[in-house]
């Protein structure tokens, strides 16, 4: 399935909902979207991965890149991810220790991600 991106504003946060396959083919589009948000001044981003069907290392690389970039400008970056196959990918790569991972968008916002 193709990549689907939708963003909405919730208080101070921008929630980017990602759906479909985030892979070597589509990850560049995710990167552009995240950079556009950051360059446009957004400082608190929550990326909702609940509708992601497939995520590979290129997609993970884009997420890490966005997190670092936001950190450099005193922003916050949180990921919403509760599905076991996806969580497994974060564990295997040790990225569960790098990203703040939340069970839901509400939890991410409440934690001030």
């Amino acid at each position, binding site marked *: 399935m193709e990549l689907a991106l939708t963003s909405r504003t919730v208080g101070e946060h921008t929630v980017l909902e990602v759906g479909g*396959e985030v*892979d*070597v*083919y589509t990850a560049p589009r995710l990167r552009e979207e995240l950079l556009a948000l950051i360059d446009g001044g957004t400082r608190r981003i929550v990326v909702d991965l609940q509708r992601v069907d*497939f995520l*590979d*290392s*290129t997609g*993970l*690389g*884009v997420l*890490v*890149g966005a*997190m*670092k970039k936001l950190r*450099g400008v005193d922003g916050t970056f949180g990921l919403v991810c509760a599905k076991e*196959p996806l969580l497994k*990918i974060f564990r*295997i*790569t*040790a*990225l569960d*220790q*790098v990203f703040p991972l939340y069970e839901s968008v509400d939890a991410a916002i409440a934690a001030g991600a």
Partner: protein
Amino acid sequence: MADVRLCFSPAPVHVRTARLVGVAVARRAGLREELLDEVRLAVGEACARAVALHRQYGLRDQVEVTISDDEPYTVRVVDRAPVEAGLGLSALPPDELADESLTDEALTVGVGFALLAGLVEDLQVRPVAEGIGTEVRMSWPLHRR
């Protein structure tokens, strides 16, 4: 013996085709459903890695995926990049992953390798027998239905 071989120009879009083929052949060979996600991700990682190497070295050669659907189900992904590049793989610890000085490319390569190594129990990475290049060999036990 390779039963199915897929060769493709080093473009990201074809990695999707390779994943599709890797999973379809595995399913028909009777690989357990729970392992199909592993195959999808591992074949994708190995092919994305090969495509990235070909692009990095300006190689127009095709990436080659050969599948044996006998026991064990085996997928080999061959790139044609210099072996130093192909073998220079390692998983990164968390503190390095988050390190500012790590380039996005290096991070993706490290994460890709961590996924391959973490998912595939039977994984081998070695220089190809003939010519220049690296072979990533992955296999899974078939419990035929």
